């Protein structure tokens, strides 16, 4: 069976767009893991919650960008509260306990969303309605804008970590928690802030994803799983790696869905994960550790 070239190119664009949204989710997850060894099982639920808050704000104000801002700020606040109440007491305990705690958190968030917003999907209105010709398709500009915006947010994060004073605090905490504390960096608050930043990025991706796939209360588990796969394939705690891995995995899935149904295409990313774990458990996109 020959696949026409135009279909392959369309899937490449689709894969890149999906990859950028996934990268936005995964970089928040990576940041949280890299800095406090917390595997955030509730990350996808923060995406979902962000999408819902965005949808509600959008319905009230009609402004997509305002909705995104409100969602990011609200979820950042919720994230900070969650971190202080559940993760801070677990600092220094077995990292496995954080999986359990965030799993409990995820249950609560998901059922709360079901309670508040009901089981039906919310579709957000696209803020950019223009389209351009891509072979036989009218490809929406919004999708391209999404990828660029996701890239810009990640770039902003990178600049902040590289140049900003607080970014340096965060990196210092990653490298040596005790030393950072000795130098006067308020480590517990750095943890809270990082969790809030990760949560805000998750919320932003939830709003960005809204017009593409709709917001449902079950989407959290899907995002969590995909973000985990990406983070492991890219090398745990490695920001650049997880971005490359997001694009890589999304492209793989996009190409696979040329042959099988999208539900089955997910298996390709599972296989990619298993192969990575078997042959290069440190991650695909990181230099080989000495």
């Amino acid at each position, binding site marked *: 069976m020959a696949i026409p070239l135009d279909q392959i190119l369309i899937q490449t664009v689709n894969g890149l767009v999906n990859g950028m949204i996934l990268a936005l989710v995964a970089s928040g997850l990576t940041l949280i893991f890299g800095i406090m060894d917390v595997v955030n099982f509730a990350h996808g639920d923060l995406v979902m919650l962000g999408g819902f808050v965005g949808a509600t704000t959008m319905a009230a104000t009609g402004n997509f960008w305002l909705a995104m801002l409100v969602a990011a700020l609200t979820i950042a606040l919720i994230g900070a509260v969650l971190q202080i109440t559940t993760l801070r007491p677990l600092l220094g305990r077995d990292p*496995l306990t954080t999986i359990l705690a965030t799993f409990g958190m995820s249950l*609560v968030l998901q059922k709360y969303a079901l309670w508040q917003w009901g089981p039906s999907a919310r579709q957000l209105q696209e803020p950019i309605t223009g389209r351009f010709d891509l072979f036989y398709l009218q490809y929406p500009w919004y999708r391209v804008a999404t990828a660029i915006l996701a890239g810009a947010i990640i770039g902003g994060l990178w600049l902040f970590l590289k140049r900003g004073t607080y970014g340096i605090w965060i990196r210092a905490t990653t490298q040596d928690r005790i030393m950072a504390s000795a130098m006067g960096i308020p480590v517990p608050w750095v943890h809270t802030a990082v969790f809030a930043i990760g949560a805000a990025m998750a919320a932003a991706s939830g709003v960005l994803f809204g017009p593409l796939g709709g917001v449902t209360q079950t989407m959290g588990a899907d995002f969590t799983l995909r973000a985990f796969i990406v983070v492991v394939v890219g090398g745990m705690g490695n920001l650049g790696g997880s971005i490359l891995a997001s694009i890589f995995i999304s492209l793989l899935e996009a190409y696979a869905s040329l042959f099988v149904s999208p539900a089955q295409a997910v298996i390709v990313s599972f296989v990619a994960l298993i192969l990575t774990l078997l042959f290069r458990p440190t991650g695909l996109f990181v230099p080989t550790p000495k």
Partner: protein
Amino acid sequence: MIATTSPPTARADRTFWLSFVIVVALLAVAPVVLPAFWRRFATEILIWGLLAMSSDILIGYTGMVSFGHSAFFGLGMYGAAAALLTVRPPSLWLAILYGLVGAGAVAVFVAFFATRLRDIYFSITTLVFSQIFYVVIFTWTDVTGGENGLNFRQPALGLPGLGETAFTPTSLHWFVLAVVTLSYLLLRRITRSPFGMVLQSIRENEPRTRAIGYAVERYKIVAVMLSGLFAGLAGVLYAIQNKFAAPDFVFFLISGEVVIFNVMGGVGTLVGPIAGAAFFLLLREGLSRYFEYYLIPVGIIFTLMVIFLPQGFLGFLRRRLNQ
């Protein structure tokens, strides 16, 4: 994850067997005195308890948190379904055999790949594996019935030399009780054997265990397989009780519930997870009558227990009693 088996003394042993007999006797009398709804409920607690107990081998004894037990449980269910749908006349023992083969095959697969990884990587890999089986079962409609699952008739209880009788709710409860009790005794024996001691030493200090000369990977593989087989057995029992196999039971939420059972009851105790399952199911039953979104309070209670009672109810009680 701290849980220690205190050195067995004659007195502690006597107390143990006495309470063991009392609990089993109470559970055996339960279906006779309880009304129909609670009779079924008691059977269900035993089945979920067996599943929770099977995962305790990994969580409590080896220190590996599996988020993939739904795969073993689900394959046990589908294995039983395969035996009951294809072989005439349907046989209970064949259903168990098929279920164990199904769960065992998955366990070999998962064990081979997942045990190369530690901590959270292990958890994520088991989660991903269970999702692979979920997607396969969900989309392979011709064989698995897809979203609708498979329905079949309950096999008769056939004991060698005694002939066959159809299951009544009471005899089903006794049968499940017998299976769960035997599994418990077997698992207790295994966890106290030299093999079980090696597993616990892996939990306490893996590099040191390796340095002493134990082939840690091999022990982990056997632990995962053992755990998978008992989880599969629970799946078979559940399939027989409910006369269906459905993809929902392969979904990772079930694995999450199993982890909740363990944490609530107390890891590394075998009985704790059963108590945790009972507590969780009762909590769900009680809350869902008043509040549709009962998982919100359950999730909050669970998270609080992770923070304040990391050893679960049983670990907490044990510590209090030892004071």
